[in-house]
Every structure is written in C-alpha cells, then in structure tokens.
C-alpha cells in the first residue's frame, strides 16, 4: 500500500518549472531517494513534502491525508543542519516536543533516550557551535527523530562532512532507518549514496522523474541515456542487432561483429539500438579474439580493488574495470573488449549504427 503519495506535483518559480507533474509513491518504511543534478527539482519536492512550500497543483498525501495540514508530519533534517545556535543540544532536540506541549518528565526521558540512541549522550549541554560537523549532524537527526515523524526528510545530509566521516554516518543512517522503520525521503546528487542507501531511487531531471526503481534497476537497466550517464560510469554505444538468441546474441558495430550473451529481446533483431554496458560488465582479452572489439590501452588508473582501463578501439573509447588482482596491462598494450556475461542493456531502440562517446 502506498504510504507516501505524490500525485501530479507541479511547482514553478517564475519561468522555471521546478516540478513538472511529478507522481511518486513509497510504501511504509521505505527508503526513497530523490537523485539528480542540482536544479533538477529534488529539493523543491522535499520542501513540498515538508510543507515548507505549497504546490501550484497536485497533491502530496501521507497515509491518505494531505501533507502540511495541521502540523507537519514530515520532519526535515536540513543540509546545513539548521540547529538553533542559541539553544544547547538538549533544548534543540526537545524543541518539537515542547511545541507539542508534552509533559516535562516525558520530554526529559525521551531526550536522554534519543541522545544515547544517537551516541551523543555527553553533549546535552553544549551549544551547536561547540560541536563538530558529525556531532551537529546527529543532533539535527535527533531533533527530527524525537517527534517520531511519519516521514523523515533528509536534504543532502552528508554533503557537509568529510569523506571518511561520510561513509561512517552513511551506514549508521541506514542502520537507524531500518531499526526504526521510519519512511524516509532522501535527497542527494551523489549516485553512490543513492545506490547504497535506498530501497527505491527516483532519478530526476529538469523537474521530472525520469526513472523510478531499485538501485540495481537504476544501475544496470537505466531507462535512458541521462540515467545511464548520471548513475555511475556508462559505455553508451549504438549497434545493430544481428542476432538475439536465447543463449547468445551478435551485434554489429564499427564494422565488426561482437558476440554477446543471450537475453536480448527477439524483436530487436535487425534493428539499431542504444546500449549501455557498465565498466565491470566488460572484460579485456586477447587482441586476436574474433568475437570481441580490438583496441589498445590508452590510460589506466589503479583504484585499489580494481584497475580502470580506457581502451581506444579507434571509433570508441571503452571504460573497462578489471579486478586488480587479475590483470595489470601496460599502456599501449593491444587488447580486446568483450562481454563478461549477459548481453548489454538496451537503453533505447532509436539509435543508428555507430558509436557515440560518453
């Protein structure tokens, strides 16, 4: 059942259409991420769910009731944390409960519980200015969680933290979200965060949702060139489908025949299509392999777990990841690019033969 429901949300700022007929739904307990470049409307949508701004048309409902009416039930953690600078941590956290006129002893008990739940038990008397970035982040989260929101809204909560801390807080955020089972909407432009945290990712572009799906779907089966390109690294190329068999298929591109795995839709045979292959779906092999595309190593980068190679095939440069323990090609080495397993994902069928660079 849809718990959070966004129906035909539309919002303009002057001539800029920030939200263009956006419809989305999330089940209770779902971790939904709005992913997109800056200016795509993701923050506008989040602020609308929070009730901080109205829509021009459309509706946002939480459990069937319109959001923003009669006290917000969607509570936001702001990108800059927005802690009240003149209140200590305890007063910051208790603010929402004080507004609800809860009784004093209950507030005190809940504040202490929340403080220790988030691992900031000793910091109750500090002012926000006396906290580190990570601690401020926890206080901001505590202030939102303590009121037991129906939907938790997170606006790029990790963007102000340094890289190391970011990874730590990221996994903690996931743990807390699963532990409390709170329905969460998370805004980010960082595809790695989106893939790692979410149950559901909605990729946005220029005010529209262009794809909704699980992280795996979004990554391996992007609905368009924009998603393919924005989420991770993609080898996007056009090819003519010669054969689309159950076991194997054959593509024709750059004047060569390329043998790929099975699973291409049979209807594609004889048609051009735009394909997406992730770097780790490709592999390097012997330059003489007749079923692969030959090329030379143009550039390489050692990244610890894997090595990333840029392979120049004349018409197209492939990005290929190989496990670092398996290969170590020198620059200018002749190789061939082949498919490791299944067929590449078909992004669209309107392509014409020939390659296109990223």
């Amino acid at each position, binding site marked *: 059942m849809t718990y959070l429901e966004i129906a035909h949300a539309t919002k303009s700022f002057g001539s800029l259409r920030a939200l263009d007929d956006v419809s989305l739904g999330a089940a209770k307990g779902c971790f939904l991420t709005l992913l997109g470049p800056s200016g795509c409307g993701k923050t506008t949508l989040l602020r609308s769910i929070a009730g901080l701004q109205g829509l021009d048309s459309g509706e946002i409902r939480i459990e069937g009731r319109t959001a923003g009416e009669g006290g917000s039930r969607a509570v936001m953690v702001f990108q800059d944390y927005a802690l*009240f600078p003149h209140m200590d941590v305890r007063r910051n956290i208790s603010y929402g409960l004080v507004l609800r006129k809860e009784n004093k002893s209950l507030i005190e008990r809940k504040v202490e519980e929340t403080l220790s739940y988030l691992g900031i038990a000793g910091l109750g008397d500090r002012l926000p200015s006396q906290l580190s970035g990570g601690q401020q982040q926890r206080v901001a989260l505590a202030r939102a969680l303590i*009121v037991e929101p129906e939907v938790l809204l997170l606006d790029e909560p990790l963007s102000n933290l340094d890289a190391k801390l970011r990874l730590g807080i990221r996994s903690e955020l996931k743990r807390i979200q699963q532990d409390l089972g709170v329905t969460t909407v998370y805004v980010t432009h960082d595809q790695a965060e989106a893939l790692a945290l979410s149950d559901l990712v909605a990729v946005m572009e220029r005010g529209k949702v262009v794809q909704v799906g699980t992280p795996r779907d979004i990554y391996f089966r992007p609905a368009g060139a924009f998603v393919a390109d924005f989420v991770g690294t993609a080898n996007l190329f056009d090819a003519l489908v010669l054969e689309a068999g159950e076991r194997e298929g054959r593509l024709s591109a750059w004047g060569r025949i390329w043998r790929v795995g099975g699973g291409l839709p049979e209807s594609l045979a004889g048609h051009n299509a735009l394909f997406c292959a992730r770097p780790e779906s490709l592999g390097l092999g012997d330059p003489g392999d007749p079923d692969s595309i030959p090329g030379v190593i143009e550039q390489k980068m050692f990244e610890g777990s894997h090595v990333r190679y840029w392979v120049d095939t004349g018409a197209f440069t492939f990005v290929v990841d190989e496990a670092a323990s398996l290969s170590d090609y020198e620059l200018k080495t002749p190789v061939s690019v082949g498919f490791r397993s299944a067929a590449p994902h078909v992004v669209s069928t309107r392509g014409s033969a020939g390659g296109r660079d990223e």
Partner: protein
Amino acid sequence: MLREPGLLAAIAVLWGALLLFVLYPALRVALYPKVHDYGAILSDPRYGRALVHSLTMLGLSTASATGLGLLFALATTRRDLPLRRLFSAVSLLPLFSPPFVVAFGYIMLFGRNGLVTHGIFGVRTNILGWNGLWLAQTVSFFPVAAVAIRDVLETIPPSFERAARNLGASRLRVFTTVTLPLASGGIVSAALLVAILVLADFGNPILIAGDYSVLATEAWLRVQGWADVRGAAALSFVLMLPSLLLFIAQRAWAKGKAYVTIGGKASSMETEPAARPAKVFLVAACSAVSLLVILIYASLAAGSLVEGWGFDWRPTLRWFTGLGTQWIDLLHSLLFSLFAAFGSALLAMASAYLVRERSMPFARAADAIAMLPAALPGIFIGIGYSIAFNRPPLDLYGTALVIALALGAWNLSTAYQTGLESLKQVSPTIGEAASNLGATTMRIFRDIHLPLMKGPFASAFFVGFIRSITTLSVIVFLQTASNTVATFSIMNLVNDGFYGKASALSVALLALAFAAVGSGRLALGRDTRSLA
C-alpha cells in the same frame, strides 16, 4: 499576515515612526527655505567660499585620513610587527571620543599657550585655519578608515600572498599586485565613509577653523548671528546633497566591488612576514601618529589637573570641583543618550526583523528610510528636528525629548545595519526548521529571532550611546538653557578660553564614554557571536 493583529500593529507603528521621525524632519529641511533663501545663499560669495572650503577639506582630509588608515590597517594585521597592539588601541581611541576632542587637544598642544609651540619653542602662533583643521580631521577620522580597511585585509587569505611569493614575486610586488588590488574595494569604500564624516564635521571646524569657514559651521552661525533659520536650513540642504551622493556611491560600491574570495576553508596560516624596510616605515609612521594621539589625550587629562595651561603648572583639582551646572549638563548627556540609544536600537531591530523576515509592505522603502540618517550630516538632522517639531500638534521645541529623538534618529542607520547584518547570518533554514517542527510565526519570533537579536541589540545600544554622548553637530540647533548637554558646554568653554574647566568636563565625558565601551565589551563578550 492579516490573521496576526499584533504583527499588523507592529508594522503600522514602525511605519509611523519611520515617517514621522526620519522622513518628515528631512523633508522639512528641504522644503522650509523659500526659493529666494536658496537664491540668497547661492549668490552670497561668503557661502560660495564656505562651499569651496568644505570641498577642499573633503579632498584633503579624506585623502590623508584614508592613507593613514591604510597604514594602521597594514600595521595591525601583520602579526610580526612590534607595537601592533598599541597601534590598534590608539587607533580606537578617537572612535569613542567627541570629534572635537582632537581639535581641543590640538589647541592645548599648538595653540597660543600650547605645550609644544609656547611651552617648548616659546612661540605664540595663530594656529587657527585650514592646516589645523586638516590635522584635526585626519586624526579624528583615520580610525574609521583603519577599521574598515582592516576588516577587508583580514578577509584576504594569507595563502594568496604565500602563493605569489612561491611563484617568485618580490615582497613589494606581492603587495602591489595581490594585496593592494584585493584591498582596493575596501579602501575606496573606507574613503567614502571618511568623506561623509569630513563633510559633516562640525566640532573640529567650530573650534579651530577660525576664519576658514565651512558649510556646517556657517549654518550654525546663520542661526547664532542672524537668527536666520531659513538660511541655515538652505545651507544644511546644500551640505546634505554631496553627503547623500557619497553615501549612495559608498553603498553601490560596497555592493558591487566586494571580493568574494574563492577558496575553501579559512586558513589560520600566519601572514607573510613583511619586508624589513616596510616594517621600519610602518612602525615609524604609526609610532609618530600614535605619539600625537597620546599627547592629545594626555594634554586634555593634564589640562584638567593644572592651574593654568601654559603658564601655571601647579596641580589642582579645582576644575573638577568647580564644575557646577556642568555636572547637570553631563547628566543630560547621559539621560538623552540612554533614551536615544535604547529607542534607536529597539526601532532598528524591529525594522530589521520586519523588513528581512516578514516581508512587510513596502519593505524596500522602509529599508531606504531606515538607512537615510547615515547619509545626513548631524547638523541637518538637528536643524530638521528644530523646525519639524516646533508647532502644534507636536510642539517639542526646547524640550529634552526633541534632543533625545533627534539623537535616536541619527543613530537609527548604524543600529539598523547591525540588526540586518546579524539576521543575514541567521540561516533562513533555522526558521524553517522551527516551522517544520510545528512552530507558529509568533513562536518562531519568540524562540528564534528574539533571542538571536539580543546580541545585536546590545551592540547597537552601546554604539548608539557612545555616538550620542559624544556628538555636537546633532544637538547644537536644539540646545536651550534648560537642557544643555556636555559637548555643547565644552564647546562654549573652549571658545571662551576656559581650558581648565573644558578639559575637566571632557575628561568626565570621556570617562563616561569609555565606561560604556567597557561595559559593552563585558556584556557582549559572553554573547556567542557565531550565529550561523
């Protein structure tokens, strides 16, 4: 907004206050003189001369005060310079004193019975004139430039100079190609600020300009000598025009030219060490000026403790014990300034809040009116109040209230800017966070904005108090026998040659001003200034 009667009432009161106490007196000055009053002013060579004098001093004193300000700013931002704390303290001193204190000290040092001229060199010279005025204005106003330029220099990350050095530039080249260009916006802005003060200066010229009359003093003499209020208003209006232009230029410049330094975290890197000749030059120049400033204040203090300055050096306390009605004047200064500082800080904070946070009707107009007094010379405001509130229903002429109100109006802009700046530092998301948790706008005002404005309110209050208690120009047109304030009384004592009493009263006034500075620092020191 319509559902909040309190807010509506506040906006109405605010608009009423801005129109009645700022805009109305200003318009009265412009409209009070008849066309032939302006004609008479423009055709009288006496006032043509005064205008030329005003503009001459504007050029001279602005240039010298800004140059000196730059030297002090450089000297006090270089951590490796000896005596920088002394320079920094000395450059603050004139900021908290009445503007004419420097002129008075100058008379004590170089006048007919001057310590230096008569006491050491045994000469009696006539020092009244443009050169004395130039020196007094330079010393009075260089601190303003120093503070403004220092603020800009401090925003330039030391890493820029490091980078230039690392690329092989000489220290001089780093200064001329990196530091100076980056500070140029701030220097021009500081010069414009100083120019407004020089133009409006009344205290220094009334004491030492002698026959070298300027517009501000001519306006005063017009009333004193001929009881010609219309003529004085016309002169004030003529004086206000260049001031307004300078002010508009300053605002536009500050807005457009502010360098936003690109780069990540503010570094705590040490500044590049200055070249040796540059160090020697800075220390020598600043020491000389500091010595002069210290001498000026020391001679005031000494003058209050000797029988007869320049001829009878026996110590005495009789100037202090002899202050009679002058104590009342000091009390007037204290009371009027307290009222003015409190009122202007309150009105300013309310304006800043309503303009910035609550999108009140005609917010831009309210903003312009609240900023207007910063562009108006003190005598302009003074004369405005003397002709705006001299008939029913608001006949306040000769009352204490009209003085306090004029002082309050004069302080409004600085207080308003303080409020606005501090609100700008409060991220808008803070209010949103409270609203998102269920707080009403009234609740957000009470829980968030009100507490956050305590600091700026206090700061505006102390600044307003110090400005009010030390001003002469605002109050000269509003003085009557029953409500004289200390600065006015000092001016009269100096003009009549009662230097002992004048210095005793100056010392008492300075003590009051510095006590305010001290308590302000105490009160604000505890206030956490990090509002972001």
